[in-house]
């Protein structure tokens, strides 16, 4: 290797080292911010925060099914005990009586701070009389009898008021001492993980901990029926772990399968293992440079960029195939002069397509653009400047020119009847366009869930468990932010007050608020200040009991309790620890860098009004001057995804225009440009129509797949075009196109069987599209003018 020839290798190695250093020091994020516009609206920011770290995202719904109720109750107790001792879980609820006892104690001790009946009027003679009249009536009722031992301490019925306040939030019903589904077939637990829902590793660990604790509990109990009890889990964490496992499984399985197949083909063709390895250099270099470019340009690299970027530069695998096969016989200089310009134009075409993603308002799309552009340029440069130098001296691939030649003669005979291919093409284009126009309203899926790899059965189970548990689906939320937890709670109280008229109007069925569990300091202080001093209370009480059957002399415990509350401290979040109220509070509040957020899930007003009129809710909040936001999570996430899709479509269209302009300039002939473009357009049209025919709703991944068809197919079309100019098909070039196409079809074709929607979308689009692009490019090239 001469010094002159060695310099590209030096530059290459230097660049690789630099890129590797940048990639190693880059910050990788795997959250949903890739889908968040660079300048999100507050609602969009909230949506993503919700999905990523929201309390709902940490909720684990656990059901014990099968066996008999005693076995399930005992298992539920054992499981709850084990999980409560595990630091991975911040809260575990199963409806057990120990927690219920603690709850009762806490509520009773803090009843004067918690009850919204506590006002100054409540403790006047008239107020006391009214509430004690009620209590006397309670005493005559069965439930009152159960509570009557409390009467001397709580004659105003504050405990019942607090219980009523809390029970407005639906809770599952206990059976056998633990929460049980309405049909009695499942025992239920709720566990909240300490780690955020977006931390999939931690979620996976937590799930494993639940399974281990369950197995241990089942083994320890060893009742004859315990063995038949099964553990069922659902929740966002379960989904995240399952989809990651599914994607990983599919990716590993498929990449092994496709690597083996492609390697076998290339080994047969190259007859050289070292060529096989060399052939990977362009794409590997491109991938590394792509990551480095994204890291330098954006500061962070999104997981989605790594995931799909590598498939986007799959075209780079073809580069080495073209080089090896087309330069067979050691005539690399000739390849550099004659075929490299064509490949370079093909690469530039793809770059034009992908560069259109760069200005996207969504970092996820912009990064995909930056990654593919830099990756493709790097891969092409390595193919052109580095591979020729590294090629072993005795390198020779199987001469495929004869095989290619046979294909060429076939093509010639087809093209000789020029009318047939073009008629076919026009017919296909017209039919596909017609089909797409008919299906235009149902062509694209506007729902984010279309990308979800969660099977419908799992989603049904989730809905069932949520219904069993009365856990909020959190689809409609009022969101109040504050600088501190207390400020957020105060905001939540104002918002809940503003929404009260809507409950009466049956616009909403109700609203949950974290302030029910922990009122704001202001509210607590106001309630405490409503409590009269002992002398006033004694005086008012004497007046109040005048016409009541109650004996004021017996009520001294009440007086001392009121005095204790009047002098006692206000509650803070820490006081709730160990009670199920803590779970209620944490599940409805969120702490982030910017402060605290209180979440107020809205309930629909019964089955007859399943949908909440969000506009009315907004108006009611605005009228009360609440700075609260209303969030319809499903609507927001679908709207966000639709924006994302629309952005991608708009940019892809711009990219297509850029490709047309590039070809017009480079080929210097509208006719040639049209001939190069025709097979690509046709391939995309036919694939889109076929997908519509099979009633596949197109997603953003299908769009990315179509970009790939154009990127890969443009190489085919340009090679045919250049051969046409050079006076006919070269067997070697044709063979290289067929081999490259076979590798692409195998690689993407296997993705169609992955069972993961995003990968299937790519596979079912690119595999047939690439094949069609090659066939169309082959038959639509006019008969050679010079032979």
């Amino acid at each position: 290797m001469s010094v002159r020839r060695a310099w590209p290798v030096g530059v290459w190695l230097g660049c690789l080292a630099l890129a590797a250093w940048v990639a190693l020091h880059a910050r990788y994020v795997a959250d949903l911010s890739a889908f968040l516009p660079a300048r999100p609206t507050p609602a969009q920011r909230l949506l993503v925060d919700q999905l990523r770290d929201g309390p709902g995202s940490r909720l684990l719904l656990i059901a014990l099914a099968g066996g008999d109720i005693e076995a399930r109750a005992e298992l539920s107790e054992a499981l709850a005990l084990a999980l409560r001792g595990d630091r991975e879980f911040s809260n575990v609820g199963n409806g057990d009586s120990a927690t219920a006892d603690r709850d009762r104690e806490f509520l009773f001790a803090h009843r004067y701070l918690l009850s919204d009946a506590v006002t100054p009027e409540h403790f006047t003679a008239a107020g006391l009389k009214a509430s004690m009249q009620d209590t006397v009536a309670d005493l005559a009722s069965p439930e009152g009898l159960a509570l009557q031992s409390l009467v001397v301490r709580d004659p105003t019925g504050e405990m019942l008021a607090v219980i009523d306040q809390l029970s407005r939030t639906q809770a599952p019903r206990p059976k056998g001492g633990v929460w049980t589904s309405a049909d009695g077939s499942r025992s239920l637990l709720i566990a909240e993980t300490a780690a955020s829902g977006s931390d999939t590793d931690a979620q996976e660990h937590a799930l494993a901990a639940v399974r281990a604790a369950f197995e241990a509990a089942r083994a320890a109990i060893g009742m004859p029926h315990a063995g038949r009890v099964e553990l069922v889990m659902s929740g966002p964490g379960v989904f995240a772990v399952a989809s990651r496992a599914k994607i990983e499984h599919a990716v590993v399985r498929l990449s092994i399968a496709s690597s083996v197949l492609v390697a076998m083909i290339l080994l047969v063709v190259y007859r050289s293992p070292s060529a096989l390895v060399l052939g990977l250099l362009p794409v590997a270099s491109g991938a590394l440079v792509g990551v480095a470019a994204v890291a330098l340009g954006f500061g962070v690299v999104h997981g989605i960029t790594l995931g799909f970027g590598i498939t986007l530069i799959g075209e780079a695998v073809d580069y080495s195939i073209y080089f090896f096969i087309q330069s067979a016989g050691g005539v690399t200089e000739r390849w550099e002069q004659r075929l490299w310009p064509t490949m370079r134009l093909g690469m530039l075409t793809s770059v034009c397509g992908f560069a259109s993603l760069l200005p996207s308002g969504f970092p996820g799309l912009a990064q995909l653009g930056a990654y593919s552009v830099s990756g493709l340029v790097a891969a092409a440069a390595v193919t052109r400047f580095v591979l020729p130098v590294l090629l072993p001296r005795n390198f020779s691939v199987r001469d495929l020119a004869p095989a290619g030649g046979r294909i060429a003669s076939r093509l010639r005979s087809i093209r000789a009847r020029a009318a047939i291919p073009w008629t076919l093409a026009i017919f296909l284009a017209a039919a596909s366009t017609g089909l797409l126009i008919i299906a235009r309203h149902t062509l694209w899926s506007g729902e984010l869930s279309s990308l979800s790899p969660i099977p419908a059965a799992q989603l049904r189970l989730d809905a069932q468990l949520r219904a069993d548990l009365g856990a909020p689906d959190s689809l409609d939320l009022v969101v109040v932010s504050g600088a501190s937890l207390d400020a957020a709670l105060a905001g939540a109280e104002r918002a809940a007050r503003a929404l009260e008229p809507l409950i009466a109007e049956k616009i909403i069925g109700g609203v949950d608020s974290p302030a029910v569990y922990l009122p704001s300091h202001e509210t607590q202080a106001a309630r405490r200040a409503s409590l009269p001093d002992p002398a006033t209370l004694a005086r008012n009480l004497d007046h109040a009991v005048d016409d009541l059957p109650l004996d004021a002399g017996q009520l001294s415990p009440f007086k001392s309790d009121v005095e204790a509350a009047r002098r006692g401290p206000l509650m803070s979040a820490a006081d709730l620890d160990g009670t199920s109220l803590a779970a209620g509070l944490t599940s409805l509040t969120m702490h982030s860098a910017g402060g605290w957020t209180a979440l107020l899930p809205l309930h629909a007003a019964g089955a007859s009004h399943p949908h909440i009129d969000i506009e009315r809710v907004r108006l009611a909040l605005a009228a009360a001057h609440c700075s609260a936001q209303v969030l319809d999570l499903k609507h927001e996430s679908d709207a966000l995804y639709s924006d994302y899709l629309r952005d991608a479509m708009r940019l892809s269209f711009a990219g297509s225009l850029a490709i047309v302009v590039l070809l017009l300039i480079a080929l210097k002939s509208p006719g040639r440009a049209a001939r190069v473009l025709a097979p690509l357009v046709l391939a995309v049209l036919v694939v889109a129509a076929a997908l519509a025919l099979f009633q596949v709703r197109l997603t953003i991944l299908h769009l990315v797949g179509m970009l790939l068809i154009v990127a890969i197919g443009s190489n085919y079309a340009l090679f045919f075009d250049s051969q046409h100019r050079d006076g006919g098909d070269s067997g070697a070039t044709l063979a290289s196109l067929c081999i490259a196409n076979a590798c692409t079809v195998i690689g993407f074709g296997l993705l169609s069987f992955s069972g993961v929607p995003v990968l299937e979308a790519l596979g079912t689009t690119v595999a047939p599209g690439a094949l069609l692009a090659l066939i169309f490019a082959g038959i639509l090239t006019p008969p050679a003018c010079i032979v």
Partner: protein
Amino acid sequence: MSLLAARRHGQVDFVEQHFLAVLKRPVESFGVMTYDAPRRLEKRTVEPRPERLVLDGDEVTVERKGHTHVLELAAYPSLLPFIESLRATLAGDLPALERAFNVDFSGNLQRWTLTLSPRDPKVSSTVSRVRIDGSRDVLSKVEIFEANGDRSLMTLRNHPAP
């Protein structure tokens, strides 16, 4: 007991008087009680405030002030003497009675008295005993004595056929 067990359905008016230490004079309530053999007992209070309590199987449903609460009987043992004593007696279900109470029967078929003392110490710490008076298959009086000296007396009267 077998006479009681033979009754499938019954409806009676009740008047209940509560004698509590905290009260200067007893509080009275009245309403209608319905029994459907063997598991369902409904107590509908009309005055002083409309309320409904249904014991069906192991589940207690309480409707008061527009709210409905569903409780599990086992989780609220304190409710046992107030309702299970009645239901089991109405059902003629001696084994069920004996599971929860020490049962003492006195008198004759025409005029009998059933005295129930809760077995569960948690229950007996609030309710010391329940006394049920009756004649043949008809209950006439249910008196509940609480450990703290309070007591309630329920007088039952056949409901005029609707």
